[in-house]
């Protein structure tokens, strides 16, 4: 907290200097909002990285404000824009892109980069991670805290159930059969848990892809919620609880899932790779991490937050913001960030650093998310994305709690989504 006070005082002092002697100091002040959606002392890590940046760039002051979850961060950042005390950049949901463009809030990175070297930098990230950040041929978001869903499993529990701890389920059938063996009769442990609060549509994106489907089109103005394959995927999710009984029925809370896994209330959990370090540091048992199981194919959506630069900033601020973003996503920093959190390294170069190479060597699970990229697709992102996501979330929860059948729920969601997206087609 003292660090923050210092930074605030520095910021105020800098602003005062700037006001008093306009020609003298070239101090640029940046404000950025960022969210945290996984466990661990991430605010400290971000603060540390920002401090390192300021040490190397004495002419830039950065005020990094923790804003809550992805929703909160977007609300805060946009609110700040309208309030006359704007932020110059922020980390926000990769899928907020259409909303931010429609609000005329952000600039494309193509319009900020000037040198060839900078342009090359735009192409240095994993293409799959760039999918959610690009539209109309321009780049609007740069990957920072990116993830895929991975399957964490309790090796000790596997051993105790007579299963091979090095053979996590690779298909939907295996998930069910393994889950049944792992579910305790007395209800003290479940076979698997897939969270259905927080970001249910994200988990559902994985199941849909594993069944060979995608949820929306590339232009973000059409959804496919009621395709038969998609309905099948939701039925499978529901059956895990209601038919196969390897998962609790009803909704499973995103925030307490990690704790449930650590307390061995479930032998398998599907969760963001961003939880990896927190699980690693706190698990009292032997655990493993694997790619999600396949049905027709393997699949997972990418997830997480990108850096965006806001339009309402001076050219000097945009340049400074670009500098900060390049710093935070540089291979070495991205590698350190990945080690400290479990989020992916955002570029091949990050995995080529000695930091990540050594880390992967001693802890191979750190590479699961990266390896899964070849089976990954963009996260659900459309115009009016907040409402559309909520429609899908509600229908998933309705199906899982038995309020309606998967078919009815998804048909309703599709109808309403089509109505909302009509004007963007």
């Amino acid at each position, binding site marked *: 907290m003292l660090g923050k006070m210092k930074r605030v005082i520095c910021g105020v002092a800098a602003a005062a200097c700037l006001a008093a002697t306009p020609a003298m100091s070239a101090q640029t002040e940046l404000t950025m909002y960022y969210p945290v959606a996984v466990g661990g002392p991430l605010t400290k890590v971000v603060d540390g990285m920002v401090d390192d940046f300021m040490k190397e760039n004495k002419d830039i002051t950065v005020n990094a404000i923790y804003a809550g979850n992805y929703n909160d961060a977007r609300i805060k950042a946009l609110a700040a824009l309208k309030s006359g005390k704007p932020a110059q950049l922020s980390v926000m949901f990769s899928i907020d892109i259409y*909303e931010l463009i*429609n*609000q005329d809030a952000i600039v494309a990175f193509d319009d900020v980069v000037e040198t060839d070297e900078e342009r090359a930098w735009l192409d240095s990230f994993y293409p799959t991670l760039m999918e959610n950040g690009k539209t109309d041929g321009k780049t609007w978001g740069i990957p920072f805290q990116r993830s895929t869903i991975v399957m964490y499993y309790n090796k000790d529990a596997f051993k105790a159930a007579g299963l091979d701890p090095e053979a996590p389920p690779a298909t939907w059938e295996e998930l069910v059969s393994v889950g049944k063996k792992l579910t305790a009769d007395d209800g003290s442990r479940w076979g698997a848990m897939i969270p259905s609060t927080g970001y249910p549509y994200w988990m559902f994106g994985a199941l849909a892809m594993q069944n060979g489907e995608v949820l929306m089109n590339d232009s973000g103005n059409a959804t496919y919620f009621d395709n038969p394959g998609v309905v099948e995927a939701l039925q499978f999710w529901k059956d895990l609880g209601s038919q196969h009984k390897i998962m609790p029925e*009803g*909704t499973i*809370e995103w925030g307490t899932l990690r704790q449930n896994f650590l307390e061995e209330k479930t032998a398998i959990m599907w969760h963001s790779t961003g939880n990896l370090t927190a699980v690693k540091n706190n698990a009292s048992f032997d655990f493993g991490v694997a790619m999600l199981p396949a049905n027709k194919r393997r699949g997972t959506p990418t997830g997480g937050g990108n850096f965006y630069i806001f339009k309402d900033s001076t050219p000097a601020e945009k340049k400074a913001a670009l500098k900060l973003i390049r710093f935070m996503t540089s291979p070495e920093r991205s590698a350190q960030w990945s080690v400290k959190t479990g989020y992916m390294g955002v570029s091949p170069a990050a995995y080529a650093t000695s930091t990540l190479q050594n880390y992967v060597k001693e802890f191979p699970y750190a590479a699961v998310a990266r390896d899964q990229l070849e089976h990954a697709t963009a996260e659900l992102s459309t115009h009016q994305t907040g409402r559309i996501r909520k429609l899908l979330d*509600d*229908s998933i929860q*309705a199906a899982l709690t038995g*309020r309606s059948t998967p078919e009815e729920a998804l048909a309703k969601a599709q109808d309403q989504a089509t109505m909302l997206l009509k004007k963007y087609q």
Partner: protein
Amino acid sequence: MHQSTSEKALYGWLLLLPAAILLFTFTYYPMAGTLFDSLVAEGRGSIASRFVGLANYRMLLEDQVFKTVLLNNLLFALGTIPASIGLALAMALMVDRSFTGRGLVRMAFFTPTILPMIAVANIWLFFYTPDIGLIDSLLSLIGIDGPNWLGTPSTVLPAIIVMAIWKEAGFFMIFYLAALQTISPEFKEAARIEGAGGWYYFRRVLFPLLMPTTLFISVNAVINSFKLVDHLFVLTKGGPDNASNLLLYYIYETAFSYFDAGYAASLTAVLLLILTTLALVQFFVFDRRIHYR
């Protein structure tokens, strides 16, 4: 030195002016503005705002979430208010007589009132967490598999209602305590002399005398039930599938998450209508109370 009537009038308005400006800015102007905004569809970037008349209200009628939300508000009020008022009356009666530790008991009842709802929600969130939460842990000790309180549509509202009763009962108790103090002990004496039992006294004398207070608390409680949505931010965010969503939270989501100010305004207009109706009800009830006394 007597001031002239018109001078006095001027001073009167001047004294009122600061408060009037704020009241205008943050109550009357927004009320009118909301009604106006509800007739407009919000522009987004390249699409400009335009006057759409009653389109937003037509959307309201077809909006499943809106209907669910209104129903939830009604259920929430029905579940919370009678129970908390009943408990409040019982508590007030308990604490009104003297016994050892009366002050502590009264304090215990009143404590939830001074906690913010957000803190109450945090505490109860842990109670309701499935499997590892407190209630489910205690239930498993006696072999019962507790339901997913906050994750099952049929239990989420009751769970929230119980929490709200815990928070509110102590607050209402205070009003009853105040009212009990104003009841002349002669009533009690008269009833005792006539040989009437305690229950008779309560039913035929005390309760009717407390009726004005009860009505006053009821209407206030209903109004409060529309205003208090803090707990949703921590507990359920309105889920699962809107089973715990309330009108003010839906307004917040629509305005701040979906950036649809026009629709949010029409939702607010409905809320204003409900509250104004309740205010009128209370005004007339209050009016009669004044005449009683």
